[in-house]
């Protein structure tokens, strides 16, 4: 199980929580699990999300492994100039 921190404005889509726990071993499984459990998150996930894993930002890497102790934070999909 991994604990995922959502950003504040996703709270309403996740039963008022900003920390949710799902079964996942990588980024892809995490997104699928989040979408399945909280359908309200699906529009944002489809728009694009990044994942901060132990402080580092991953933009789209599905198979990034997530350890049970990892700090996992969902972030909007990011772009730069």
């Amino acid at each position, binding site marked *: 199980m991994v604990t995922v*921190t959502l950003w*504040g404005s996703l709270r309403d889509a996740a039963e008022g929580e900003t920390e949710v726990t799902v079964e996942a071993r990588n980024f892809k499984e995490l997104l699928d699990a989040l979408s399945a459990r909280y359908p309200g998150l699906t*529009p944002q996930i489809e728009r694009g999300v990044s994942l901060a894993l132990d402080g580092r*930002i*991953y933009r789209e890497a599905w198979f990034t492994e997530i350890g049970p102790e990892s700090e996992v934070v969902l*972030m*909007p999909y990011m*772009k*730069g*100039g």
Partner: protein
Amino acid sequence: MNKITREKGQFKVVGTRVKRPDGIDKVTGRAQYGADLVVPGMLTGAILRSPHAHATINSIDTSEALALPGVKAVVTRADFAALDDDEMIDIADNCLARDKVLYHGHAVAGVAAKDAQTARKALKLIKVDYTPLPHVTDVDAAMKPGAPVVQSGRQEENVQPEHSENVTGYCEFGHGDVEAGFAKADHIIERDFKTAAAHQGYIEPHACLASMTNDGKADLWCCTQGQFNVRSLCSAILDMEASQLRVTASEIGGGFGGKTTVFIEPVALALSRKSGRPVKIVMTRDEVFRATGPTVSSSSTVKIGMTKDGRITAAHAKFRYQGGAFPCATYSFGAQAAFAAYDLEAVKSEGWNALTNRPKEAAYRAPGAPMAIYAVESVVDELTQHFGLDPLEVRLKNAARENTKAAYGPTFDQIGLVATLEAAQKHPHYSAPLGENQGRGVSCGFWFNFGGNTCVTMNLNDDGTVGITEGNPDIGGSRASISMMAAEELGIPYSDVRTIIADTSSLGHNDVTDGSRVTFAVGLATIEAARDAIRKMCGRVAKIWGIDEDAVIWEDGYAKPSGPNAGDFEPMSIKEIAAISSNTGGPIAGHYEVNADGAGVSFGVHLADVEVDPETGYTQVIRYTVFQDAGKAVHPDYVEGQMQGGAVQGIGWALNEEYIYGEDGVLQNAGFLDYRVPVASDLPEIDTVILEIPNPGHPYGVRGVGETSIVPPLAALSNAVSRAAGVRLHELPMSPPKILKAITDRG
């Protein structure tokens, strides 16, 4: 996950100031930029633009234009493919308007003719029947219920119902109990801020040359930050297979984020398809200002509580951005970046995006961060003034460091903010005396930095020199830094490596040159491609020597026997290996393909001294120093160049640059005379101090450096003005009339 394989003191090439390989082409006028290519049979393209800020298009009649001798094709939005993805539709609609024109200068039709004069005449013969609609250009006005609606049905699900339909997105970040935090403060300051839209201001207007043949194959030459992105967008808009469209990036005359999308490229392709001839389109400066991306303008509210000894107890910010007529996510980057420099127990950062009748925002260096951090750093500074505390001490006291939970969520690993603040504190600039009407301002800055999709090929030439093929346009010396990293890893001289930028048919997909990603991600892929080639070279040598592959090591450009075989064979140089490669298995190349992760965030601190003329309100920057963490500066000259160039763009944004709209929704200053970017005589020397706190996500510790430097100048100058003139402005730019008014109002 520490990827660092080479530390300080172990570099031979990286960290030196070698000459860039494209230098001679660029000082002799030989380098070919977007507008410089000429091909036989070429037509000139031109774009018809909307005279209205907002209007319905009832009909477009192109018959008279087509009848003009010398006109070879006219295209409208109907010549683009049917699209189903919202983002793609927006990009296509921005290139040529569909049902409505959404801003003054919005493209409506394209013409290709035998020459520019004929093309211009033809534009006047296109009859567009418009019904003008009410317009809105200010962010606060656009958010109010009852505002003219720019586009319907674009609201994301979590936008509060009290806003107008123009509000497309809402986000909130942060942690802790903000109200409880404010209760612990000795003083709370809450202020409203406004920042104007600033244009990236690259000196080269957008330009392209498209050539499509009637078998559906096309070549496109253009100035862009990402040829692969241009291919993806254009092939979708023109309904082409990607393989049929080869995009070559010209030399690029500046981008800063503004050349990360398409404007004229699909129009040129459509005109070429229709006319059967190559078509070149070059924007005028007026078109660049009216119809390509400036950054967002913003309105924000920041509230921060502090104890009398300078500890921040809570912070709450609201950022309202407008990014023009199409939705964008820049507001969320601003809301996330706003408090990155602080270790806060309680913080809430909210953002909204609103549509307006302005050109579609394009990324601009650390998109969204400068205006948010300007507001935060202004309030922090006002609190230090309130308590009479030292501004750098207060920032150090509250500074984010390793294991700080960032306001945007994650926990920081090794970051350079404290080292950067300490360097600023110790620098002679910070203690230098100031004269009358002079003041010193401080601000922190931050950008996330990204990695992204990257592939690099390294080919070993038959004489033992090396070719690197990469896919990101060189905007500021990246050919040099990539060659340096290849030379470093291979243990060969820099002069033995030549790096070229591939067209889209010569390499796999590479993301655009954005997010300060090139030296980090392309560098990482280059190092890995070199390692791949080294493994192959060691394998060949192992066969020659008849020993195990893993008994051969690579050192300083030589394969050497190691372990029990150490000393048994004479080391083989890369040149010797190359010379016999046809005997040992054929050509040798290294490859690496990755969606790079592990980009390290970059912090900067700027010190600015200004003198404000109390008679005119004019602000002169008299001394400026940039401190920034580069992780590892691969080519220090070009790292300094990024720090200086970003700082000066920020200075322009703080003091002069702004999009000024009239009541009619028309941009009033669409030229370099009235949109005034800093010139040489406006500026002092920009001193630089590079800090190197290695990024664990890169083999050499490299962090992106391109963007952070534009962030601090906005607040650093505002904070300096407040100390020099005794008035604090809450609006940018701080043009002389505004400062003079503030001085007069104070009395």
